[in-house]
């Protein structure tokens, strides 16, 4: 029974971001204490001082979301014929978008899990919104295979359950694996995200400005009180979830790549696909982290916690994963030539030169391989605008990567089986609409939940500022 007459707690003023404070690893640019960290992040939710630009982004998101709704209604009413898909390109944009979104969805867990295991302190400022990005991106991704089935209302047939048709899923198909991989990934990401939120929501409860906030966050935090016994179990759970999440990230995108690689289509049937897809996923995920971090830094004044150093590190991860992806492109060409398989080589020739879609391959190379090389230059990595533009280039490039893979189907070995593929307006309505779904959800998230993990930033604060100078997750988790 929280007393109504709780003493008013003094709120220390927010430290200035004026360069007077120096963090040894440049991961913080203001002299924060545990209290000022909490106030700064929680006030975004509790006091709702939302910038006008929030309405701008929310408006765009909502408009695109309406297009999404319209596109879905028409699709469900008419069937998948409203899309441009046909033989030979039966997969089309739905699968391109599915893989694009699920790729973006991988950086959140990467940041949360892998960087935690690697003791990377810089994950702390960006893990919460990156995890949130993962959740929403996986939701957007999940929509596409579902609506691509044509009869969405039979979507539950994907799951194994005893039924009066006496049939079961076909467990030797990567498409059935996908169902398990993606739904597990979504569930585990939600668990990881929610577990991380519990202590933050307990702070929101205690810092609430009114009865409603105290009620809602009090319910959501499940009555968390920060007991040492609870923390011990909590840390162990968090560490183990990170330990499971790491191989999970790899396995999910590996399984997504199996959708292609287990087939016998030339250039799809390749062992390079799983690692190449995983690298691409991290590449595009970090590009999206950059796209989210830039507005958060400016519109919410989070430059003290998401510093230039964080942005630079994102740039470094992008150049590393970008090179892995480019290595994949090179190997595809190499294997096609070296294998002496005329099917592989002819498909490659069609892909990069002879088919009507040759330009998409070069678009991919330009945006995914050539432009990101600028990130080698430190001045570019440190320049927010340049980093933002390169991240945009990566978004386009990663989309084209999947487009190039899918469009390969237009050229078979018999010219009689050749075909063309042109997306219709309904393809695009759903595609850009899914961006609206993401934007809307993310804008709403900013209003109701802390965008940066309060608890973890506090623990990360240097000793003199009330923290423990980083995570002792490995030491605490027993």
């Amino acid at each position, binding site marked *: 029974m929280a007393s109504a007459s709780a003493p008013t707690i003094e709120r220390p003023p927010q430290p200035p971001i004026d360069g007077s404070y120096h963090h040894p690893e440049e991961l913080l640019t203001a002299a924060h204490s545990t209290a000022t960290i*909490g106030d700064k992040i929680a006030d975004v939710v509790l006091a709702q001082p939302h910038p006008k630009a929030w309405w701008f982004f929310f408006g765009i998101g909502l408009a695109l979301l309406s297009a999404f709704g319209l596109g879905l209604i028409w699709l469900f009413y008419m069937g998948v014929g409203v899309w441009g898909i046909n033989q030979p390109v039966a997969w089309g944009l739905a699968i391109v978008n599915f893989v694009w979104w699920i790729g973006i969805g991988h950086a959140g867990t990467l940041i949360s899990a892998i960087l935690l295991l690697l003791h990377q302190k810089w994950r702390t400022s960006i893990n919460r919104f990156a995890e949130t990005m993962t959740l929403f991106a996986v939701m957007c991704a999940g929509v596409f295979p579902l609506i691509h089935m044509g009869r969405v209302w039979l979507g539950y047939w994907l799951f194994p359950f005893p039924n009066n048709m006496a049939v*079961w899923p076909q*467990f030797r198909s990567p498409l059935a694996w996908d169902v398990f991989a993606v739904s597990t990934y979504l*569930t585990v990401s939600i*668990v990881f995200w929610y577990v991380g939120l519990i202590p933050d929501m307990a702070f929101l409860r205690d810092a609430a400005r009114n009865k409603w906030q105290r009620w809602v966050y009090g319910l959501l935090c499940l009555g968390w009180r920060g007991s*040492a016994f609870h923390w011990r179990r909590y840390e162990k759970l968090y560490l183990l979830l990170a330990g499971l999440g790491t191989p999970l990230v790899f396995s999910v995108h590996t399984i997504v790549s199996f959708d292609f690689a287990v087939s016998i289509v030339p250039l799809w049937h390749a062992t390079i696909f799983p690692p190449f897809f995983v690298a691409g996923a991290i590449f595009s995920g970090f590009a999206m982290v950059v796209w989210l971090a830039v507005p958060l830094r400016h519109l919410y004044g989070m430059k003290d916690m998401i510093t230039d150093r964080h942005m630079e590190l994102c740039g470094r991860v992008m150049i590393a994963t970008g090179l892995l992806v480019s290595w994949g492109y090179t190997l595809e060409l190499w294997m096609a030539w070296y294998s002496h398989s005329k099917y592989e080589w002819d498909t490659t020739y069609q892909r990069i030169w002879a088919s009507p879609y040759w330009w998409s391959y070069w678009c991919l190379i330009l945006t995914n391989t050539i432009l990101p090389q600028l990130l080698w230059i430190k001045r570019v990595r440190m320049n927010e605008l340049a980093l933002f533009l390169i991240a945009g280039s990566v978004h386009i490039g990663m989309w084209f990567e999947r487009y190039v893979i899918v469009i390969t189907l237009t050229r078979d070995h018999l010219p009689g089986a050749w075909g063309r593929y042109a997306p219709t307006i309904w393809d695009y309505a759903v595609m850009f609409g899914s961006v609206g779904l993401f934007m809307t959800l993310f804008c709403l998230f900013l209003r109701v939940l802390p965008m940066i993990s309060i608890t973890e930033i506090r623990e990360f604060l240097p000793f003199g500022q009330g923290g423990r100078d980083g995570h002792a997750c490995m030491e605490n988790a027993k």
Partner: protein
Amino acid sequence: MSDTHTHSGPPPLHGVMAEFKTADELIAATRAARLAGYTRMDGFSPYPVGEVADELGFPRSEIGAIMFIGGLCGATMGFLMQTWVSVIDYPISIGGKPFWSWPQYVPVSWALLVLSASLCGLFGLLALCGLPQPYHPVFNVDRFTRATRDRFFLLIEAVDPQFDPAKAKEFLASLHPDDVAEVPE
């Protein structure tokens, strides 16, 4: 209910609580309390401080075992489910592969391992911590709202065998806390 009208003594105590400014002070205080013979205690902090749990005599949690067993069960059930479906109940020939083409059951078994380990971990945490628990006596202390903000608390519970309100308060006061408070039940 009638008890509240007739009861004239002080309310029953849940324990006595001291407030500290830093995690290190809480660690030191917990150690001092353990050395003084107190056994039923709890520490509260805005972020995890593993040493406090060590001092409280909780060196190892149960979560690892729970998740291990959960993961094992999930994977086993998943594998058996696929075997039963593909070999016994609904055998269909796919690309001439044997019905029991077990390597192809690995991805789903793995996904179910992670899924069930994670869910067991989450629900294990909640069950072991007794959450959700919106009400707890410690919330009766007004200053306890700072336990999620910037302060660290040590609670000596009334169920401790050597608990005596006056002595416990005196002991806690000797640890140079910011504040000592009684926690009404």
